[in-house]
């Protein structure tokens, strides 16, 4: 009940946020030079044709009225239609969003186990050999350009060894797993270090807490104290960072999706920006924003479950 009210209030709060997001995006798109119609009808079309079609799309109306038309439709749940494909933006989102979502979730699944293992490992003996190695490797993973690493992985695992597809999404669940392995891996390579570093320091902090001593004094032994007390307490700070990263992945999968030709939101976004397909960019951004808000909310709820002091 209490948490239900929490959810509702948060959702209400998110309305003005989404409103703000829509304004910013709209202004950005309006400010972007370049004519969608020119890109649509192609090189050879004459000025007259272009002007005619611009008019058909109402692209020459005053900006404000354009925005209000857009907002009006938005309030009725209508994200508008793509300038390029003339199909509803919601259809496009429906087509590309699941892929990105799958990719992100997949990446998370690949990311979490190593993060836990590595951070625990290096926290056991701070500044020990393992710790140093893990940290340096981490920094490298962080500093290698994703698209570069991705390309190498594709050529090696995809072409040389032929173990994994280098593109696409597949149709069945198994195929999804198979196709998205390399993209997810490429993502994991730079996300793991960030989370590991964070969780490690959290673990180190928690290991010096008084309740650890108390636990030891009960004869629980290090292993159990770590398992039942230290770890749960360390997860909290990492969880928040995790939320930020997930949010980032949703929008930042552009590169990986490009290199592995994954038909996901990132690709849709970039293509739409390049093609000045205003309504798609707006719609997609709104969906992103909404997802992020939901993720943040979810994380807050989870932390609420873990930590009774946070009241959700």
């Amino acid at each position, binding site marked *: 009940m209490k948490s239900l009210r929490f959810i509702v209030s948060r959702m209400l709060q998110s309305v003005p946020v989404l409103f703000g997001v829509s304004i910013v995006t709209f202004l950005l798109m309006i400010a972007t030079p370049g004519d969608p119609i020119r890109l649509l009808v192609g090189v050879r079309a004459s000025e007259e044709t272009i002007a005619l079609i611009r008019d058909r799309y109402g692209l020459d109306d005053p900006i404000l009225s354009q925005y209000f038309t857009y907002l009006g439709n938005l309030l009725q749940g209508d994200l508008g239609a793509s300038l390029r494909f003339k199909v509803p933006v919601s259809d496009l989102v429906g087509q590309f969003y699941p892929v990105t979502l799958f990719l992100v979730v997949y990446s998370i699944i690949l990311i979490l186990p190593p993060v836990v293992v590595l951070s625990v490992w290096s926290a056991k003996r701070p500044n020990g050999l393992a710790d140093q190695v893990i940290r340096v490797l981490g920094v490298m993973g962080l500093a290698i350009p994703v698209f570069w690493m991705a390309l190498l992985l594709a050529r090696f695992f995809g072409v040389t060894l032929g173990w994994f597809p280098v593109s696409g999404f597949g149709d069945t669940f198994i195929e999804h797993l198979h196709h998205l392995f390399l993209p997810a891996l490429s993502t994991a390579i730079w996300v793991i270090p960030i989370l590991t570093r964070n969780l490690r320091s959290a673990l180190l902090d928690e290991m010096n*807490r*008084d*309740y650890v*001593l*108390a*636990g*030891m*004094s*009960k*004869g*629980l*032994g*290090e292993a*159990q104290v770590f398992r*039942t*007390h230290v770890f*749960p*307490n360390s997860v909290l700070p990492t969880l928040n960072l995790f939320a930020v990263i997930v949010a980032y992945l949703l929008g930042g999968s552009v590169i990986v999706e490009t290199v592995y030709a994954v038909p996901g939101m990132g690709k849709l976004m970039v293509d739409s920006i390049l093609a000045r397909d205003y309504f798609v960019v707006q719609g997609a951004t709104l969906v992103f924003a909404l997802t992020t808000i939901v993720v943040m909310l979810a994380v807050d709820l989870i932390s609420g479950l*873990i*930590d*009774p*002091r946070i009241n959700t």
Partner: protein
Amino acid sequence: MNPLLSVRNLTVRFGETTAVDDVSFDLPRGGALGIVGESGSGKSVTCRALMKLLPSVAKIDGAITFDGDDILGASEAKLNTLRGKRIAMIFQSPASHLDPLMRIGDQVAETLRKHTDLKGRAIQDEVLRLLDVVRIPDVQRCARAYPHELSGGMKQRAMIAGALACKPDLLLADEPTTALDATVQKSVLDLLAELRRTQGLSMIFVSHDLGAVARVCDDVLVMRKSKLVETGKIRDVIENPQHEYTQMLIASHPDRLRLHKPQDVARAAPLFEVKGVQIRYGGGSILDSLMGREGGFVAVKGASFSVQRGEALGIVGESGSGKTTLARSLVGLVKTAKGEILYEGSPAEPTGRNRAAYLRDVQLVYQHPYEALSPRICIRDAIGEPLRRHKLCSPKDIPAKVADLMQQVDLAPELGDRLPAQLSGGQCQRVAIARALAMDPRVLIADEVTSALDVTLQAQVMDLLIRLQKERGLTMIFISHDLAVIRRLCNSVIVMRQGEIVEAGPTADVFDSPTQDYTRTLIDAIPRLDAAPA
């Protein structure tokens, strides 16, 4: 019959520093031994060494034999069969020694799960029984509660319950009552004493407070600078201490401090007049105003009192009684919702236009010595800051002025370049006082200035304050939960409870013939050296 525990030439080193130096003692079955000393004296380390609960960097020499088992030689596995089962431990500040994410019940149960073959339901029942043993009301609720939902006293009881779970032979109590209010402290001490009798516990009780030790123990060790300075029957030690440190320790116990006679004050127009002040936290939200209620939580309810020039007023009360809030309202840290504060007859505006001027007259000294000083500013600058900011003297005179202030509060000049973190608690408290004095105030409000300090330091700081009051004719308001301190320093006293002033009057009257039961319990709770063991 050989002792339950015998310690021979125990020495603990952390790298260069020796934390415990050649300590030996025995504990007979059913005996209770107190270890007394100030922070850094090595008493806690000794206590933890008994369980071999020291970080791996610690080098431990000597021998500890518990019921025939060699502790220091034992393997972790072996130790873990002793820890919690036969030797249990309770700590200072239960708040931090309980896992905030785990229900009280489960934390008590941990020991049972580890050391007994009890299962599910049986464990539940046992937990409830234990919680009941330590006098926790409404055990059902408490077992399901999380630490932050319980008061400090309840937490400590819960921790004790956990320690008792496996009927240990030896209970190690490390400052178990220090963080608690006087009344709570008393009740916990009584509980321990009782458990000793009923459960036949042997006990080692570590504390900085002889009075507390006297309530529970027969024998006492006095430690100082990691060395054992005196041992003996507690009575004897208290009656005629041999070592001069012990003597000082006893002399500086609030109970033994000579009552200084506060200068009596002219019954003139009061310097401070507080009229029906009400203070509220939170509230005032749109929702509240819509529902036409005040909302929020009321910390101080209609407090009225007055302070004469040169008077020393004491405000006592347990944590949460609103005494600190009240004090802060006097310097504008919290806004008053109702009522008014008159300073020299005219309304004081601690938050208003000429607050700077007002605050030059009225200064507040805070409770936690370390936290009250900006961590990255060396203390010379810290003391000079008000001078510089308020241009109280020409820039070139500042060093001299600062040196003078430091000397006034007995701070060695060479400390000037240190950061607060590099000073002791007592020194920090002096810095804070010096900084307040830099404003050359007429009123000094001291908020629990002594409670975070060791007894000897407490005494020194109190002396300092008394001296300053004499020299500068300061008007003082002391906030403290320690009645002994108040009794010693103040002409008159106000007793607060849950935001209300329940009793007020000249110190002597209030202490000798309290009209309120609450006041009486507070007074009874003052740890006394001569009190008979509970």
